[in-house]
């Protein structure tokens, strides 16, 4: 206990240890927050949701905060609907069970580029007679453009850029441009735009609800991918998965390596010889391609890959260095004493040999976490990521297969890469400092 407290005090002397610990602590907090806020099943359903869940988002949209850094402001996405009051709706009853429904939305458009798309989703209730709506677009400079007049069925979607009647009215010009620019100068008109929907229902109990979705060029805190998914979800969920994978793999590998090294050195003879030969064979086994084989032939589940990773990482160079230390410890007096009073082999290995190694284990444990975190990402980049889980590597893989670097969607790669890098460096920095604390030989250097 006293040694631990001393080590802790010593840690405070190393700035890299403090930075590393803070990063790890923050990651753990984010991971816990994520798992509580977005439970596993919800996360999976959202991640694999597709168009129905994510229709409100534009595709390939960088995060909204890039507007702060750029003089060219890109339109921010939003969605409003009548069902939760964000879109204004006034119902005026008329004669013979008919009613007029006025829906309108005014928004300030102060951007230097056109939006990707605008959509109207109608949901209506009626028995026989379809309600009818007229949609009008009001620009800041006072022009009034009729978008469309149509009878709407129970569920109907209107895509502005693909609406035939609107295209005809605009003489074939791209609606996303024509609706936002001056017809003569072709410059974007900034100011308050208004969308007016006037609906008429022809039956008592008939109703119209609408949702106006504005696909801008930028979206949210992290942007979106090719399936309109909000990248905040995989970025957040990547943290608990990376931490779990890294820690479990590194802990499992180290503990098993140590136990096997201890058993080998204690018994000596053919056991020791066998372990050394296995280590040599393992050295020529191509680690990543075996993982690839397991991934393609058997299972891509993260936990299967984790198991194989641990198995293949046991018999590596570190078993040799543990062996060298155990050989020294084996000769020490207290082991001889234990042997003299008749302690069993099992007792000596697990009660006397291994506990001696634990302080040496801690730096190794911490500094091997990043390699496993990056291993998960590497497999995902090869297309062998877990098919269900949203991870950082998966984002990079999606970005890579969609040519993000060539097409300029830099945010898509940079966000997960930055998180991976922060995680890796956090653990590596702490590990380095711990190594100096627990290995006094390095301390002066």
């Amino acid at each position, binding site marked *: 206990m006293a040694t631990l407290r001393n080590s802790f005090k010593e840690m405070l002397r190393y700035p890299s240890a403090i930075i590393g610990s803070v990063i790890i602590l923050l990651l753990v907090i984010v991971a816990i927050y994520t798992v509580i806020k977005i439970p596993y099943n919800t996360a999976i359903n959202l991640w694999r949701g597709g168009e129905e869940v994510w229709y409100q988002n534009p595709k390939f949209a960088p995060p909204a905060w890039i507007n702060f850094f750029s003089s060219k402001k890109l339109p921010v996405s939003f969605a409003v609907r009548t069902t939760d009051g964000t879109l204004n709706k006034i119902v005026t009853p008329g004669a013979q069970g008919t009613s007029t429904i006025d829906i309108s939305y005014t928004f300030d458009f102060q951007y230097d580029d056109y939006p990707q798309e605008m959509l109207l989703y109608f949901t209506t209730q009626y028995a026989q007679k379809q309600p009818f709506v007229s949609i009008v677009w009001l620009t800041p400079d006072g022009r009034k453009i009729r978008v469309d007049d149509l009878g709407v069925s129970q569920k109907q979607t209107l895509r502005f850029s693909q609406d035939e009647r609107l295209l005809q009215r605009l003489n074939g010009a791209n609606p996303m441009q024509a609706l936002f620019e001056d017809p003569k100068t072709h410059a974007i008109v900034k100011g308050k735009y208004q969308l007016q929907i006037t609906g008429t229902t022809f039956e008592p109990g008939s109703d119209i609800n609408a949702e106006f979705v504005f696909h801008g060029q930028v979206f949210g805190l992290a942007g979106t991918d090719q399936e309109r998914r909000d990248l905040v979800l995989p970025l957040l969920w990547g943290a608990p998965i990376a931490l779990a994978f890294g820690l479990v793999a590194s802990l499992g590998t180290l503990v098993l390596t140590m136990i096997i090294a201890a058993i080998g050195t204690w018994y000596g003879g053919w056991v020791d010889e066998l372990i050394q030969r296995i280590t040599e*064979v393992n050295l*020529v086994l*191509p680690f990543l*391609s*075996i993982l690839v084989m397991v991934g393609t032939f058997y299972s891509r589940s993260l936990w299967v890959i984790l198991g194989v990773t641990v198995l293949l990482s046991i018999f590596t160079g570190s078993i040799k260095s543990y062996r060298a230390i155990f050989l020294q410890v084996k000769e020490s007096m207290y082991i001889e004493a234990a042997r003299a009073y008749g302690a069993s082999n099992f007792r000596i290995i697990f009660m006397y040999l291994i506990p001696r190694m634990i302080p040496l284990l801690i730096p190794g444990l911490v500094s091997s976490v990043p390699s496993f975190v990056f291993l998960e*990402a590497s497999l995902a980049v*090869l297309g062998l990521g877990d098919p269900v889980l949203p991870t950082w590597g998966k984002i990079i893989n999606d970005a890579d297969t969609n040519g993000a670097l060539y097409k300029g969607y830099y945010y898509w790669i940079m966000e997960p890469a930055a998180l991976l890098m922060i995680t890796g*460096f956090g653990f590596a920095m702490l590990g*380095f400092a711990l190594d100096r604390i627990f290995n006094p030989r*390095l301390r002066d250097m």
Partner: protein
Amino acid sequence: MAVETQSATGGVKSTLVNSTFLRVGRYTLVRLVTVFATVVVGVYLTIMIANMGGYVDQIMKNDIRDRFTQMLSTPAYRNMSADARKTLLEKSIALEEKRLGLDTPVAVRNARYLVNALTLNLGRALNMTSDSGSKEVRLIILERLPATLLLMGTSELFLFFASVLLALTLSRRYGSFWDKMVITLSPTSAAPPWFYGIFFILFFAAILKILPFGGMTDSPPPDNPIDFALNVMKHMILPASALIISSLFLSIYNWRTFFLIYSSEDYVEMAKAKGLPARDIERRYILRPTLPTIITNFALLLISTVSGAIITETVFLWPGLGRTLYRAIGLYDTPVIVGTTIIYAYLLGITVFLLDFIYALVDPRVKVGGN
């Protein structure tokens, strides 16, 4: 003894050279046999893992079916009715499978596959073809091997010499600004090479547009051999730098520490006291005795970077083994995946052996014949 040696200098020298040669030779031979045995076991394990789901069996069966279908489509069989041809096909396949022992126990089958793998008889690919149009997995892989060796060899050699030299320089003035800089930067080695590759592509290819995104040559490649070499070099800058950067700082740091430990040995102090020049001390008193350990460490580093190179090649579209493996995964081409794994096991074995050989050349204990 001493008198004798002096009187017959010439003769003793020649036997000395002879015995040194013999010892190195014997050591090399023993290592060669051990490494070969290791590779055999490694390849066997690879086959076992692949064949647990029957994938190697499947490769064999596809091979047989392919061969007989081709044989029966030759003009000699044209007069046969379709039905008769089909029964003949199924019959001959069944016979051939029996002949090749596909109905024998797993252990026997695996042993046979082991022999096939060791003789590079890797079967035929399902979808992929080599540039010359062949479906032989061996040809597909061997065609890609030079590109991988070029990239890996260049970057690893550079890495080795750069880090040893820089580590020596730093160990001389430890505590200086550059020394602290390297210590601060050493955690950067936690990230694999492909990770740096992405940043390099982003910065040098996408934003600055001064280096190519990937590939090995322009398309079409230049005809002139000198232009061609220059073109390949230009394409190699980014992937090689990614491979180097990802392990440079950690290996400088490790070896610097190692040199520092060694430079406080008594015999080094003694040499300093004698007033030997710093260069000599570095070369003969520090570098020489640490070289074997450095080489062993380097071997381990090299082995761990082979895996990283697979994805680096993929990221940079470098037409090597790693990219072949990546494409094979995408096409679910099992024979190529198994074949690549086996070739990687071979490559690792050869690396271990080569380094062992260099080790024998630099380690005085092997030369002098001590244990």
